[in-house]
C-alpha cells in the first residue's frame, strides 16, 4: 500500500470510529476552506474564479500541501453566480467585493399561508420561486423554460468542476472522502419557511400574529424538507444549518420550531442517518433540547462554553466547532496553539469530538496562514488518544427511533413512476430509473433554489 493510501485508511478509520461510538486513534482534523478563501489565496480575481471554478485547481493543490487536514481543504462552494445570475435571483446576489450573499428577501406573503398549507410544493413553484427568481417568469413561458434549462446546465457544470477537483485531491493526498458536506443537505421546516419564504422580518411578525398558521406551514413543508435532505446511497449523513432559534423566545421555539425539527431528526435516525447540525449563533439556551436529539447527532457550535457543552452533550452527541476562527487573524501563532490545546483538553476526552472552527472564514484576509497551519498541526500531533478502541459514550441504535408516517409528498408538478406510467402506458420499464432520476434532479434543483 502506498503512503497516501495508508494515510487515507487511517483517516477513514478515525472518522468511522467517531461515528461508530469508538475512541479513535486521534481527533479528526476537519478543516475545510471555502471557495472564496482559496481563490484569493491563489491570487485569483474572486468574481472571475466563481464564473470559472476550474481555474482554482492550482491554488487548491497548493493549499492542500500547505494546510494539514483529514478532509479535503477545499470545500467548493454552494453559491456560484452562473445559475443565480441566469435566473435573476433576488435571494443570492454578488456584492461589490465579489462575495455572494443572501440579503433579506421575501418570497411568500401572509396571504399565501393557506395555499402553502394546502398544497406546499405547488405554492413554492407557482408563487415563491417566481418572486425570488425573476427569470422564472410564468408570464413568459418559453423564456422561463429556456432560463431554467440554462441555469440547470450551469449548476451541473459548476458543481462538476469543483467536484472533480475535490476528487482529485482526495486521491492525491489521501483525504477522508466523507466531509461534513458530502451527504444530503436540508433545513429545519421552520428555517425553510423563515429564510427565503417569509424572511427574518416576516417570520418575526407571523410568530406573534399567526402562530397557528406558522405551525401548520411547518407541518406542510415537512415532507418536502425531509425528501430534500435524503443523502445519496453512498452516504448516511445530512448537513442542516440551523438559523432562527437564537433569535426567538424559548416559548415560541418550543411550539413552532421544535416539533417538526425533532421529528425530522428522529425519522432520519430511524433510517440510520446522522444529522450534522450547524448551530448558528448562540445555542446555550437550548442545550437541553439538543440533548433530546438522536444519539450521535453531530453538533457544530459557533458559540458557547466548551466545558458546559461537553458536560451536557459530550457523552451522547458528537461535538465539533467552537474554536474561534477570528483567533487566526487577531492572535499570534503561539497564542493560537496554546488556545487550541485548551479546547482539545476540554473537548477530546471520552471521544465523540471532531476538530473544526466555530465558522469557516469568508475571505482570505480573515486568517493568517501561519496560524492556521500551526493550529491544524497541533490538533493532529497533540490530540492523540491513549485508549483508542474503547467505547465512547452512548451507543447509537436506529431501532430506538420510530415515527408515524407523515403527510405524503404530492404535487401536480412531480410525477411518480406510477403516475407517469398511467399517462404514458407505452413507456418501457427500462426507462424507470432514468425517468425517476430526472424527476428527482428537478425536484432537488428547484428546492436548492430556496435554501
Amino acid at each position, binding site marked *: 500500500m502506498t503512503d497516501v493510501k495508508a494515510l487515507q485508511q487511517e483517516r477513514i478509520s478515525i472518522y468511522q470510529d467517531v461515528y461508530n461510538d469508538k475512541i479513535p486513534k486521534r481527533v479528526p482534523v476537519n478543516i475545510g476552506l471555502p471557495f472564496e478563501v482559496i481563490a484569493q489565496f491563489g491570487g485569483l480575481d474572486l468574481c472571475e474564479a466563481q464564473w470559472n471554478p476550474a481555474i482554482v485547481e492550482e491554488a487548491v493543490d497548493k493549499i492542500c500541501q500547505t494546510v494539514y487536514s483529514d478532509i479535503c481543504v477545499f470545500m467548493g462552494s454552494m453559491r456560484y453566480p452562473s445559475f443565480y445570475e441566469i435566473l435573476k435571483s433576488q435571494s443570492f446576489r454578488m*456584492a461589490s467585493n465579489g462575495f455572494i450573499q443572501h440579503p433579506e428577501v421575501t418570497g411568500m406573503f401572509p396571504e399565501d399561508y393557506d395555499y402553502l398549507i394546502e398544497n406546499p410544493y405547488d405554492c413554492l413553484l407557482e408563487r415563491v420561486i417566481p418572486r425570488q427568481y425573476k427569470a422564472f417568469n410564468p408570464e413568459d413561458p418559453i423564456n422561463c423554460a429556456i432560463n431554467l434549462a440554462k441555469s440547470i446546465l450551469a449548476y451541473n457544470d459548476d458543481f462538476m468542476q469543483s467536484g472533480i477537483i475535490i476528487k482529485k485531491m482526495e486521491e492525491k493526498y489521501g483525504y477522508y472522502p466523507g466531509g461534513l458536506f458530502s451527504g444530503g443537505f436540508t433545513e429545519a421546516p421552520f428555517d425553510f419557511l423563515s429564510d427565503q419564504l417569509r424572511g427574518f422580518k416576516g417570520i418575526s411578525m407571523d410568530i406573534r400574529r399567526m402562530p397557528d398558521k406558522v405551525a401548520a406551514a411547518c407541518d406542510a413543508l415537512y415532507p418536502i424538507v425531509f425528501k430534500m435532505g435524503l443523502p445519496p446511497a453512498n452516504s448516511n449523513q445530512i448537513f442542516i444549518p440551523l438559523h432562527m432559534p437564537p433569535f426567538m423566545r424559548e416559548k415560541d421555539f418550543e411550539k413552532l420550531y421544535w416539533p417538526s425539527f425533532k421529528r425530522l431528526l428522529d425519522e432520519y435516525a430511524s433510517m440510520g442517518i446522522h444529522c450534522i447540525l450547524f448551530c448558528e449563533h448562540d445555542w446555550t439556551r437550548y442545550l437541553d433540547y439538543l440533548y433530546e436529539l438522536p444519539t450521535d447527532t453531530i453538533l457544530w457550535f459557533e458559540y458557547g462554553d466548551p466545558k458546559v457543552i461537553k458536560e451536557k452533550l459530550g457523552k451522547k452527541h458528537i461535538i465539533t466547532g467552537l474554536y474561534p476562527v477570528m483567533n487566526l487573524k487577531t492572535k499570534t501563532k503561539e497564542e493560537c496553539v496554546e488556545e487550541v490545546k485548551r479546547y482539545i483538553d476540554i473537548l477530546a476526552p471520552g471521544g465523540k469530538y471532531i476538530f473544526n472552527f466555530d465558522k469557516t472564514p*469568508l475571505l482570505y484576509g480573515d486568517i493568517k496562514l501561519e496560524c492556521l497551519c500551526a493550529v491544524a498541526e497541533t490538533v493532529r500531533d497533540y490530540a492523540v488518544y491513549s485508549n483508542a478502541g474503547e467505547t465512547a459514550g452512548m451507543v447509537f441504535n436506529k431501532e430506538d427511533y420510530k415515527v408515524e408516517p407523515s403527510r405524503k409528498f404530492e404535487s401536480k408538478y412531480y410525477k411518480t413512476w406510477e403516475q407517469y406510467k398511467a399517462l404514458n402506458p407505452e413507456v418501457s420499464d427500462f426507462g424507470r430509473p432514468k425517468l425517476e432520476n430526472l424527476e428527482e434532479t428537478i425536484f432537488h434543483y428547484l428546492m436548492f433554489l430556496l435554501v
Partner: protein
Amino acid sequence: MINLDELKKAVGELDEEKVKQMLTEFVESNPTEEEAQKIVVACQEGMGIVGDLFEKGEYFVGDLIFAGELLTEAINVLKSVIGGKSAQKVGTIVLGTVHGDLHDIGKNIFRSMAEAAGFEVYDLGIDQPVSAFVEKVKEVKPDIVGMSGVLTLAIESMKATVEGLKQAGLRDKVKIIIGGNPVTKEACEYVGADAFTTNAAEGVKICQGWVK
C-alpha cells in the same frame, strides 16, 4: 385622554391588539396636537421598555423586529392627529451597511429604535461605498455615523470608510459607532470608531449619550 402608562406598558409588552385599539379610540376622540405628542412620547417610552427587556435576555432579535413594526404602525395611526409639527429631533445619524455586505436586519432594527428615540436617521442602504458615506455626511452634517455589517469582511470596509471620512476632513466632526455580528472592542480600535455594539438598544443609548 387614554391612560399613558397603560399604553406604554402595552407597547413594552408588544401587545399589538391593545396598542391598535387604544390608538384608534384616541384618534376618534378628536385630540389636540399636544395630546397626540404625549401619546407619541408614551410609545417611545414603551420602546425603551422593549430595549430593556432585550438587554435582560427576555426579548430577542425577532421581538425587536416586531417592536419596530409595531411602532411604525402606531405612528401611522397617529399621523392624522400629530399634525405638521414634528417632534423635536435629538440628533442626526447617517447610517448604512458598509461595502461588500448585503445584510440589513440589524441596521433596520437600530434605525427603528433610533427613530423611536427621536433621532433623524438617513439610511443609505446596503453595500454602500465609502463615497456614499462621505457625500451624505457632507450634505446633512450629522452628529453620528453608524456603520453596520454582519460578515467578518465588513471590518475592513468599516476601516476604509473611517479613512475616507478622515481624508475628507470630516472624521472629527462626527462620532462613529459600528454595529453587527463581527464587531468587538479590538475591531472597534482597528476600525478607528468611537464605539461598537452588537445590541441595537445599547447602540441607541450610546448615541443618546453623545448628543446630550
